[in-house]
């Protein structure tokens, strides 16, 4: 236990459940329930021309949506501040952790590449949205199957074979751990909505497999000492191991389609 820190649900960092492959219209999907917080991620893959400044790369476009149905404090309309922050956070995680090499998404340099639209929708908001979104994204990406594409020489058009599909090459498995800070002293892991509301600051640490730090997100709030920060990071490493185990179990229990 941290000094004054509290771990939820006796030892595990909040009960985490994942359901893979729930949506058949999406190329990959996952539903993650972290306590009460529920996030669904659907990934659709489309073709596009690669960006002119990086002709051998594809696109990964995340979008976090916090609709009014997840909590009464969100209104319908364009994405509010919180949704934009979450979207940018996910974009940073994807970029920094190199979860997918964008070069893998390129089919024909300069002409055709895959775009992965990752749409994360929060269905129930009870705090710790960033952790849940990261898990959902990771689980959905593991689930994505892209059809085989060949560029025929005669017509220079793409030919898609929907029958042959292959999984994405997921290089790393970033796992996010969030903490709520109270007045420089108290740290709570995996805060619920109420705890987040009362906290004076939050911190999110995204860890990789080999204990490498991918991303640290601390949007203002009260300060933390260096020692506390180190503590958080070691917590994040433990959390990563637990989540990875859970994910491997779920993947194994799913037969390949």
């Amino acid at each position: 236990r941290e000094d004054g820190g509290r771990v939820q649900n006796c030892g595990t960092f909040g009960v985490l459940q994942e359901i893979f492959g729930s949506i058949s219209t999406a190329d990959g999907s996952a539903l993650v329930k972290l306590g009460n917080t529920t996030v669904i991620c659907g990934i659709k893959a489309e073709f596009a021309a690669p960006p002119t400044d990086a002709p051998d790369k594809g696109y990964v476009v995340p979008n976090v949506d916090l609709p009014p149905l997840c909590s009464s404090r969100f209104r319908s309309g364009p994405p509010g501040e919180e949704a934009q922050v979450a979207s940018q956070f996910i974009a940073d995680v994807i970029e920094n952790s190199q979860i997918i090499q964008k070069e893998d998404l390129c089919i024909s340099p300069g002409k055709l590449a895959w775009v992965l639209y990752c749409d994360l929708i929060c269905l129930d908001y009870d705090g710790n949205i960033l952790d849940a979104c990261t898990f959902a994204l990771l689980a959905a990406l593991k689930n994505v199957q892209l059809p085989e594409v060949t560029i025929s020489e005669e017509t220079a058009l793409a030919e898609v074979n929907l029958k042959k599909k292959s999984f994405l090459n997921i290089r790393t498995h970033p796992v996010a751990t969030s903490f709520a800070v109270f007045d420089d002293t108290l740290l709570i892991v995996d805060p619920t909505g109420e705890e987040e509301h009362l906290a004076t600051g939050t911190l999110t640490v995204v860890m990789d497999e080999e204990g490498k730090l991918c991303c640290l997100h601390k949007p203002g709030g009260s300060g933390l000492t260096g020692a506390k920060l180190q503590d958080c990071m070691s917590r994040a490493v433990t959390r990563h191991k637990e989540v990875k185990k859970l994910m491997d179990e779920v993947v194994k229990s799913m037969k390949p389609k």
Partner: protein
Amino acid sequence: MPGDHRRIRGPEESQPPQLYAADEEEAPAARDPTRLRPVYARAGLLSQAKGSAYLEAGGTKVLCAVSGPRQAEGGERGGGPAGAGGEAPAALRGRLLCDFRRAPFAGRRRRAPPGGGEERELALALQEALEPAVRLGRYPRAQLEVSALLLEDGGSALAAALTAAALALADAGVEMYDLVVGCGLSRAPGPAPTWLLDPTRLEEERAAAGLTVALMPVLNQVAGLLGSGEGGPTESWAEAVRLGLEGCQRLYPVLQQCLVRAARRRDAAAPL
């Protein structure tokens, strides 16, 4: 989207791989025109909403949440003649605000989040169908917010959304005269085809006309009707409405069971 700087930018345009796919989609199989797909309904599953419901019918998955009653926006309105039964005067009655959203991954082709006209039309249809069922006079100057989210479109999405919204309202404890049950129909193009109850997505895509009916089963009154397309003579439309109403009646017991189960679950959790 070109001017939208609130979302992460992607490429200017993109095409789905299905456009380039070699094989053709199979035509929908012939089936009994009055078959209803088995429905899975569950109420009371979101912790943050006052009432919620999830409905799954074949491939269509809809989640609906209700919040409120909340102070209505808008200025003071003058009183009018009071309604019967001690309800607020007509001008002070509560409002129902409906929001219909389609998840970007819900259909075959990705739809960017601001859905545009179609979502607004469906939201309005939801509101028109739910208003007769809710006792808005009991919520003066308040508004109830109903948000429906379509997670996967497997055909008859509006009908499923209507049913889910009514279940969510009931789950929230909002006073209602009756539940609203929705049913979708579609008619394939051709010389003299029949109307199909509860179409799948394939059938809906190839349809020449579509219809959604909303029925209040106990009162046996039609709460809403939305249809479009080339349906043929008026008798054909009347036949379709009759078929739809029958379908709604058949769905009703499932929904009753769902609400009873949700109430039991809530009871079991409450005394803690």
